[in-house]
């Protein structure tokens, strides 16, 4: 091998290694910048104030609870809608649909994943908002529920594709065994396949909802953005953490308390998605390990 070849090989390997590490570098960078800009908020605003019930930053009221509640309510609402639809669709695609149908249905669901959230938000404003107000006889159609419906649509493709993968990964021998024992196809799905794919399906749900809690534009367009706390929040306007950042970030001057608090909210969102993803991937990992053990 010539010297030049060797040198080239060396340079390229270095480059590849560097790019390989990039994901870690970027996650670290993102976390560092959020820390650097968000942590000062903790010393500038007393904790009791951050845990307050009122978000009105231009009068220095930085209560984060209503925003947290808003994000949670919208996401839970989305979960109630998306889980049955998503899991049922996944079961249908993986277990019931004939092969040709699968080939059509899977890419079709993926289209939903590609729909820009502003397009859904736009339709939400024009079609869904008036419908919700008159249909549920509410004071206004800009509610958490409206956001939940859009978020359900957005988290559906994640739930379907991950859940379908995990159902697909259940060994055929499980099903054959159940069927051989005289179980119906449905009994096999309900008692054998679904329980065997349980952790995969749970992971799918978590990843889907992780995506939902981080969604911004559609939610900002249809939830009314009122930072209020009430027990029946699902049917009233709420304000999510993501919408708060998107609506207010452009405004604030760099280095002010307000700026730091918005980054603190970003940090909270980052940590939530971090937790969700760590949990989800460790669950998948364990499931894989268990499957290997059982099959060996």
């Amino acid at each position: 091998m010539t010297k030049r070849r060797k040198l080239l090989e060396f340079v390229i390997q270095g480059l590849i290694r560097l790019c390989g590490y990039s994901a870690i570098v970027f996650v670290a960078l993102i976390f560092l910048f959020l820390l650097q800009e968000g942590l000062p908020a903790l010393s500038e605003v007393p904790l009791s104030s951050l845990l307050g019930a009122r978000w009105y930053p231009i009068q220095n009221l930085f209560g984060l609870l209503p925003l947290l509640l808003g994000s949670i309510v919208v996401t839970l609402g989305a979960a109630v809608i998306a889980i049955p639809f998503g899991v049922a669709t996944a079961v249908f695609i993986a277990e019931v649909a004939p092969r040709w149908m699968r080939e059509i249905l899977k890419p079709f669901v993926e289209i939903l994943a590609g729909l820009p959230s502003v397009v859904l938000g736009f339709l939400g404003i024009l079609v869904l908002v008036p419908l919700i107000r008159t249909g549920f006889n509410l004071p206004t159609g800009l509610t958490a529920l409206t956001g939940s419906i859009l978020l359900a649509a957005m988290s559906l493709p994640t739930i379907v594709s991950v859940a379908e993968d995990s159902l697909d990964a259940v060994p055929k021998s499980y099903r054959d065994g159940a069927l051989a024992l005289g179980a119906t196809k449905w009994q096999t799905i309900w008692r054998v396949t679904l329980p065997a794919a349980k952790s995969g399906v749970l992971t799918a749900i978590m990843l889907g909802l992780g995506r939902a809690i981080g969604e911004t534009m559609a939610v900002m367009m249809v939830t009314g953005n009122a930072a209020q706390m009430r027990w029946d929040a699902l049917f009233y306007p709420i304000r999510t953490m993501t919408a708060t950042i998107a609506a207010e970030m452009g405004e604030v001057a760099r280095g002010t308390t307000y700026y730091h608090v918005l980054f603190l909210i970003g940090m909270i969102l980052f940590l939530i998605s971090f937790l969700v993803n760590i949990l989800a991937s460790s669950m998948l990992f364990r499931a894989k390990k268990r499957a290997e053990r059982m099959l060996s």
Partner: protein
Amino acid sequence: MRISRIVTQRIAFTLLTLVMAATMLGILAIIAYIFLKGLPALSPEFIFSMPTHGMREGGIWPAIVGTVYLTLGTAVIAVPIGLLAAVYLSEYASDSPFTRAIRIAIVNLAGIPSVVYGLFGLALFVLFLGLGSSIAAACLTLSIMTLPVIISTAEEALRSVPQAFRLVSVSMGGTRWQTVWRIVLPQALPGILTGVILGLERAAGETAPILFTGAAYFLPQLPKSIFDGTMALPYHLFVISTQVPGMPVKIQYGTALVLLIFVLAMNLVATLIRSYYRSRRQW
């Protein structure tokens, strides 16, 4: 009396089919509705002319061009990095705790909310590096966001290339890089392309990450350098559906349709590449 298990099965399958049909019909309805409402607005003039009269008339050309710029710029940055990272993971890295940390980082990168990317882009590219609100800052932000999609799909494609191919190349005296460059990459190309397009599709449709890093409400001319801000289709749709008074609904639906066609076309291309090569694959 107990319901017979055959009846139970029938009920369950009917329910499953209904739910599935509802989901699919929902998706179809969304797309059909936008096509129906938006199609009358489409004309060469709408696509190729500048907006006039406070954006209430004229076309959306600068927004289309802006989205193309942002998508290409993102590709230029994210594709090489993502591809090499995938090569590293599938061809070079051993299964060490460090490699596992990289995988966890990728999964996390994929899960970070888009608006947090916007915050990060603002803090690092716009302010810290002084790029200002510009195409450059927006593309860099979008690149980091699309990176995990590109890495994981490209890695999957690389891994699906049978080990035998590599063994043959190496046994004939090929170096590791030669093996990757001449043998593995070409074989995995369709899969990689699919991943790249799906990643870019997401970048093209996103609003939140470019909100503070490069999107402009209105520009009278097309951007001239990567340090100019730009209009973009998703942000434009957000603007005209929430910010401009007396905006004709027709233009709103027209813009939504153009954006939809943009991402659907990318999606279609990705799906076609995948199914075409899957059917032709000989191993």
